[in-house]
């Protein structure tokens, strides 16, 4: 068993219009067709915000409020650096664009942490809802946050396939 740091050199992220034929098994070529924004992702820059809802299932005659699982909400949000020479992340997509997001939480097993065949990844699909520049502040690098709609059921246990 080996725990790993969540944001210290490991995560890789690719964003783009795709397509990805099978979100549960994206190919290395499909991921290569997206834009690699790993170098622009801030250390606290990726969250999925998954939360399950409860459906009350107890009647008036019952003391304990029992419940059953209801719907699930997902709120994928990403924060990237702005760059005054190559503003790659900011230029990669616009509001309203439908994009795939391939996120490798453990990092890829390829050279320099690149995602390669057999690597476990998470795949999300949705529409870019906004591009919000963070407030300016002293001694703070410029960055922006973008939120993604839930356009498809996410694949949290996808694996990169060779074909």
């Amino acid at each position, binding site marked *: 068993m080996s725990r790993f740091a969540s944001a210290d050199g490991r995560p890789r992220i690719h964003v783009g219009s795709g397509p990805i034929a099978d979100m549960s098994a994206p190919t290395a070529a499909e991921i290569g067709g997206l834009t690699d924004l790993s170098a622009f992702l801030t250390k606290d820059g990726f969250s999925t915000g998954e939360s399950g809802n409860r459906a009350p299932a107890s009647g008036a005659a019952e003391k304990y409020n029992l419940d059953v699982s209801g719907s699930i909400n997902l709120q994928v949000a990403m924060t990237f650096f702005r760059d005054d020479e190559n503003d790659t992340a900011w230029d990669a997509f616009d509001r309203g664009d439908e994009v795939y997001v391939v996120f490798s939480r453990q990092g890829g097993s390829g050279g320099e942490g690149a995602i390669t*065949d057999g690597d476990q990844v998470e795949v999300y699909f949705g529409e870019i809802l906004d591009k919000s520049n963070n407030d300016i502040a002293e001694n703070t690098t410029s960055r922006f946050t973008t939120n993604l709609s839930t356009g498809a059921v996410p694949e949290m*246990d996808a*694996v990169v396939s060779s074909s």
Partner: protein
Amino acid sequence: MRVVLAHPTAKRRKSFARSQSAAAARFFSAGWRIVEPEEASGLEEAFNIAETGAPEGPAEDGYFEEAEVAPGASLTKWASLDLIQQVPEGPISEILAWVDGDEDRAQAALVVERESSARSTLIDQLEAIANPYDGEKETEL
């Protein structure tokens, strides 16, 4: 027990329950290899072993047992878990009465006896019933 797969090159593992067999199949197809249970050669076999302790065989639960029937030879026989649970406790005569010449019952009783008292007299008699063709089989022409 869950099935554990390992990444083809990196030091990473992932475990799967039977309900996650579709996800396991994706990883297996992507080159991940089975590390637990070690003896499994395929995913279906791995899940069977993880659930029942038996690689393959009848749909019912049970045990595989390696039985030495002749020098240098061995016989792997299947013993039904249902029958194993029916084997009576008691003197040799009572167990033989329950077996009543039935090969399957004899095999189930063998599994139980070897795990418990291991009475050699009973084991010899059960083996003779469970493996009636030990050695040469005479064929009438």
